[in-house]
């Protein structure tokens, strides 16, 4: 007998922080998934808010295409502030 579909669980540990992926669980519907997530992932007040998302609804980049997919960012160090030279003595820049 099936355990219900798979859900990915995201927990916001406290106000001001984003939800972070903590793991997954089985549940027949979203409401049960939330309840199960509370029991499974927040037994010690680890969160103030939970998201549950059907695992099938997540679209992921493929590890095989790692290089070409992320390559566009590889040759653009000028996107970082450390790329630029600032003369000695210039402040607040």
């Amino acid at each position, binding site marked *: *007998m*099936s*355990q*219900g*579909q*798979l859900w*990915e669980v995201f927990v916001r540990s406290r106000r001001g922080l984003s939800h972070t992926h*903590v*793991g*997954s*669980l*089985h*549940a*027949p*519907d*979203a*409401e*049960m998934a939330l309840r199960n997530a509370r*029991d*499974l992932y927040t*037994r*010690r007040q680890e969160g103030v808010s939970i998201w549950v998302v*059907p*695992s*099938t*609804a*997540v*679209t*992921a*980049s*493929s*590890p*095989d295409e790692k290089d070409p997919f992320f390559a566009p960012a590889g040759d653009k160090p000028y996107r970082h502030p450390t790329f630029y030279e600032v003369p000695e003595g210039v402040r607040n820049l």
Partner: protein
Amino acid sequence: MTAVRETPPASRSAPDAGHEAADAGLEAVFEATLAADERVEPRDWMPDGYRATLIRQIAQHAHSEIIGMQPEANWITRAPSLRRKAILMAKVQDEAGHGLYLYSAAETLGASRDELLDKLHSGRQRYSSIFNYPTLTWADVGAIGWLVDGAAIINQVPLCRCSYGPYARAMVRICKEESFHQRQGFESLLALSQGTPEQHAMAQDAVDRWWWPSLMMFGPPDADSTHSAQSMAWKIKRHSNDELRQRFVDICVPQAEALGLTLPDPELRWNDERGHYDYGAIDWDEFQQVLRGNGPCNEQRLTRRRRAHDNGAWVREAASAYAAKHGPEER
């Protein structure tokens, strides 16, 4: 781009040269990931043997967590105080949680939850032998927390650095929770040890019965350990069985002294040369017997597990019927 949980392609066995070359490339990436001490993640290519080893190990680990609920749950209704009862319930609930984290980790490798439970119920996959021993008195709950959870922690801490990401992450969460398990056991044993002579004797008796099975939890001696070398190379395992066992003995001896209890091994003594405690020979025949199903509680544990699963069938059925009725937009 594909759904995140889609079972990753198994290594292709097609004989044509193109695929072989592609496989060699993928294997090189896998080896490089290990060499750099980086984590392998679910959708990465991995050798079939690595995947199978992890599924077997994580499943056995998950089964141990949920079967491990039974010996202690046996005492929830008879805990000596409300405080001890609340603590024990929280611990047993944690063990259920540990099982669920681990089943999820196994699923990222393409195993299904139903299939894993089925293998447990039909005896095709194992759980730790330690849970085939009975909990005869309340002191056993303390001895389990101190020794069994203590041994589990020593085994599990290095697994937080295991090469497979989801397993390592589950272990980080588990290890955080385990430390209370061991402490509550120690505290409970200390209370008994410092109590009436009868209570002290009960604590000593529990430690006498759980000491040797706890040493067996680290697995067979290195010389007889079949999977160790490959698991080390894959960085699933980081230390040998005997190394971890020695660490456990060294930690326990002073703790037993603090408890005012003795460990049931006349050969236990400090070896200055080695910088470790020497300990007596472990009865590996007993270990093999329990592994083969002939321990005191093997039958009882599995029967209880199967019955719990069967008794929960109507709940699972009702929940999926409800979900089906309320349509996919809510699911």
